[in-house]
C-alpha cells in the first residue's frame, strides 16, 4: 500500500527508507490518519521527510502521486444544476456587472457557453483564458479578473482547500538545491573536516588518568593520548575574471567559508582553465605567476583538489595547444588537468552555474568528462555530494 509514494520519493532523491515506510504502515494501522486525506498527508510527511529542505520536494511528489484521487468526494462541477449556477451568479454580480453580462449575450448565453465548456473540460484547471478553473480571465471560475466572471463553488468546496495544503508549496524557500549562503556552505564544508588522532602520545589524558588511577585503587596511573590534528588538506583553485565575474560573489562566499574550516588550505587563482601557471594575487597576476609544476611539487597527493569555475569557455581552450585566451600555452588545458588529476587522487570541480543549464554548454560537458563526472553545482546539495566524495 502506498509503496508507489515511497518509490516516487526515492526517484525524486528523497532518502525515504523501508523502515520509514513500515512506520507509516504501522501508524496507518493504528488509525492515526482516520481516512482523512489531510491527516494522511501530515502523517506521511512526518514519517517520510526528515529534513525541512526536502519538504517542498515531498509536496510536489505527493501532489503527483495522489493527483487522481482528489475529486472522489466533494462537489463535481459537472453535476452542478443550471438553476444553482444561475442563482449564484445573480447573487454575486452587481447590477453593473449584470449589465456587462449583456455584452456577452446575456445570462442565458453565458450559461450555454458554460455548459459547453464544462463538457469540454476534463481536469482541474488554473490560469488560462478559456477553461473553467481558478485565477484565470475566463468568465467562469474563481479569483479571475474578468468582470463577467462567474464564481463556481469556492466556499463550499472544502475539498479543494484540502488539496491546496500541498499545492501551496510553503516550504519552497527551504529547498536546498536553490540558494546558498555562507552559513550553509560552512555546514557542508564541515563534512570535510575530519579529526583524526595520529602520531606519538603527547598529551596527558586527564579523564583517562583519573579513571585508571581510580581503577587501580588509588595508585597513580598516567595515560597519554596523541595530539589532535586536523588532517584535511585542501588545495583550492579559483577561476577569476571573464565569464566568472557573475559568480565572483558565490565564489568568494565559498572562499570565506573554506578559509575558516581548514588549517591546511592553499588557494590559487586561474583564468578560465588551469594551465602551466597560477597566481596568488589577482592584481599582480602577470608579475607573480607561479608555475603549476611548483604547486604540484609543493603540495603532495594527500591534498584534496577543489577547482571552482564555471567551465564556460571555447572548447579550444581545453583541447588545443595555444588555445588560451590570455597567453600562448605550450600544452593543451586537458593535458594540465589530466596531470593534476593523476597527482591528486581526490579532486572535484565546483560549478556555480545551475546544473540544469550544463547540458547546453559544450565546454562544461568536456570538463565534466575530464573530471570523470566529479563536477558538482555550487549549492548545498552539490557541496554535500562533493565533500562526501572527497572524504570517502
Amino acid at each position, binding site marked *: 500500500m502506498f509503496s508507489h509514494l515511497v518509490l516516487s520519493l526515492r526517484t525524486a532523491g528523497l*532518502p525515504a*527508507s523501508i*523502515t*520509514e515506510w513500515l*512506520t507509516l504502515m*504501522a*501508524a496507518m494501522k*493504528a*488509525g*492515526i*490518519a482516520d481516512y482523512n486525506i*489531510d*491527516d494522511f498527508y*501530515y*502523517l506521511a*510527511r*512526518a*514519517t517520510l*521527510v*526528515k*529534513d*525541512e529542505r526536502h*519538504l517542498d520536494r515531498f509536496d510536489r511528489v505527493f501532489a503527483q502521486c495522489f493527483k487522481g484521487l482528489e475529486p472522489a468526494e466533494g462537489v463535481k462541477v459537472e453535476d452542478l444544476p443550471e438553476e444553482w449556477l444561475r442563482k449564484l451568479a445573480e447573487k454575486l454580480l452587481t447590477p453593473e456587472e449584470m449589465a456587462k453580462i449583456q455584452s456577452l449575450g446575456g445570462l442565458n448565453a453565458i450559461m450555454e457557453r458554460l455548459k459547453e465548456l464544462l463538457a469540454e473540460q476534463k481536469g482541474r484547471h488554473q490560469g488560462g483564458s478559456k477553461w473553467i478553473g481558478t485565477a484565470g480571465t475566463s468568465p467562469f471560475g474563481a479569483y479571475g479578473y474578468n468582470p463577467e466572471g462567474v464564481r463556481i463553488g469556492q466556499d463550499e468546496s472544502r475539498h479543494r482547500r484540502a488539496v491546496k495544503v500541498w499545492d501551496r508549496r*510553503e*516550504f519552497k524557500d*527551504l529547498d536546498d538545491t536553490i540558494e546558498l549562503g555562507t552559513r550553509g556552505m560552512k*555546514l557542508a564544508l564541515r563534512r570535510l573536516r575530519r579529526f583524526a588522532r595520529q602520531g606519538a602520545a603527547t598529551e596527558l589524558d586527564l579523564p583517562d588518568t*583519573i*579513571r585508571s*588511577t*581510580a*581503577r587501580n*585503587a*588509588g595508585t597513580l596511573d598516567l595515560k597519554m593520548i596523541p595530539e589532535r590534528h586536523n588532517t584535511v588538506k585542501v588545495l583550492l583553485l579559483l577561476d577569476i575574471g571573464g565569464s566568472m565575474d557573475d559568480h565572483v560573489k558565490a565564489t568568494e562566499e565559498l572562499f570565506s567559508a573554506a578559509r575558516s574550516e581548514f588549517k591546511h588550505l592553499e588557494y590559487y587563482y586561474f583564468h578560465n582553465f588551469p594551465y602551466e601557471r597560477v597566481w596568488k594575487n589577482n592584481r599582480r597576476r602577470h608579475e607573480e605567476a607561479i608555475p603549476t609544476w611548483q604547486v604540484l611539487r609543493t603540495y603532495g597527493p594527500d591534498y584534496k583538489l577543489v577547482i571552482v569555475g564555471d567551465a564556460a569557455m571555447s572548447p579550444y581552450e581545453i583541447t588545443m595547444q595555444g588555445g588560451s585566451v590570455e597567453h600562448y600555452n605550450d600544452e593543451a588545458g586537458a593535458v594540465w588537468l589530466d596531470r593534476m588529476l593523476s597527482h591528486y587522487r581526490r579532486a572535484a570541480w565546483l560549478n556555480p552555474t545551475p546544473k540544469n543549464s550544463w547540458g547546453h554548454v559544450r565546454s562544461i560537458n568536456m570538463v565534466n568528462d575530464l573530471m570523470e563526472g566529479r563536477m558538482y553545482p555550487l549549492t548545498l546539495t552539490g557541496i554535500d555530494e562533493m565533500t562526501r566524495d572527497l572524504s570517502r
Partner: protein
Amino acid sequence: MAGFRSTDKYIASRDLEVAVNAAVTLQRPLLVKGEPGTGKTVLAHEVAAALGRPLIEWHVKSTTKAQQGLYEYDAVSRLRDGQLGDPRVHDIGNYIVRGKLWEAFESDEPVVVLIDEVDKADIEFPNDLLLELDRMQFFVYETRKTIKAKQRPVVIITSNNEKELPDAFLRRCFFHYIRFPDRETMEKIVQAHFPDIRNDLAREALNVFFQVRDVPGLKKKPATSELLDWLKLLMVEDLSPDVLRSNEKQVVIPPLHGALLKNEQDVHLFERLAFLARRNG
C-alpha cells in the same frame, strides 16, 4: 484515543497534532525543528500536560555526552572514599550517578522526555543514543545490569539545525518542522496568551510585528516568543495603540523595541529605514 490537541495556552496546527499523535501512538521519538522562538521547547511541556504525564527535561550543551543521559561513574569520589577507608567503596553501585534517561526508564508511570537542542552537542551524540532510543534499554558496564524501560517514554527532541543529524538517527524519528505562524494563527496565539488584551492594541502590535519581520536584512527576525514578551511590556506600560500606528508616509520605531530586535545592527538598520521614510514623507 486520548490525543494531543491545541490547548488554551498552546495553539498547535493540525499537522503538528498528527505528528505528535503518531509519535505517541507508535512510541517513537519526535524530532521538532523550526526557527528559534516558535515554541519547540514549549511543545514538550504542552504534550506532557495534555497526556497528564510528568516531564523529564534533558538540556543538551556543547559538552554533553550521550553517556551522561544514561549514567555516570563517579570514579573520583570512589577514589577519595577508597583513600579515606569508607566501606561504601566496596559497592561500585554507590558511585553510579543516574542520568535523565535512566530516570525516565525507571519511572513506574509513563513520562515525557525532552531532549532539548540536540544539535548543540557533538556530532556523534545522536549516534550514541540510537539503540537506547530504539529499544529503550541500555547496559551498565560497571554493575553488569541492563536497564530496560518499564514504560516506553514519549521522547521529544528539538533541534536548531546547527548540525546535520545522522541518517540512522533520523530514520527512527518522526519529524516536524514548525513553520512560522501566519497572521491568523498568530492572532490566536496572542489571544491564548493574553485573553484580556485590547483588540486594537493587539491589531496594531501585530501590524508592527509583521512589518518588522518584513524588513530585509535583519540578522535575527523576531519570532513568537519575542512578540509575546513585547506585548507583555506594552500591556504593562499601558501604551495606547496610536503610538504604534504608522502609515505609508511614516514608519515608527516601535516603542520598547528592545524586546523585538536583539542586536544593535538590527536596531540601527531599523532606525535608518525609519529615518529615510520620514525624510521622504
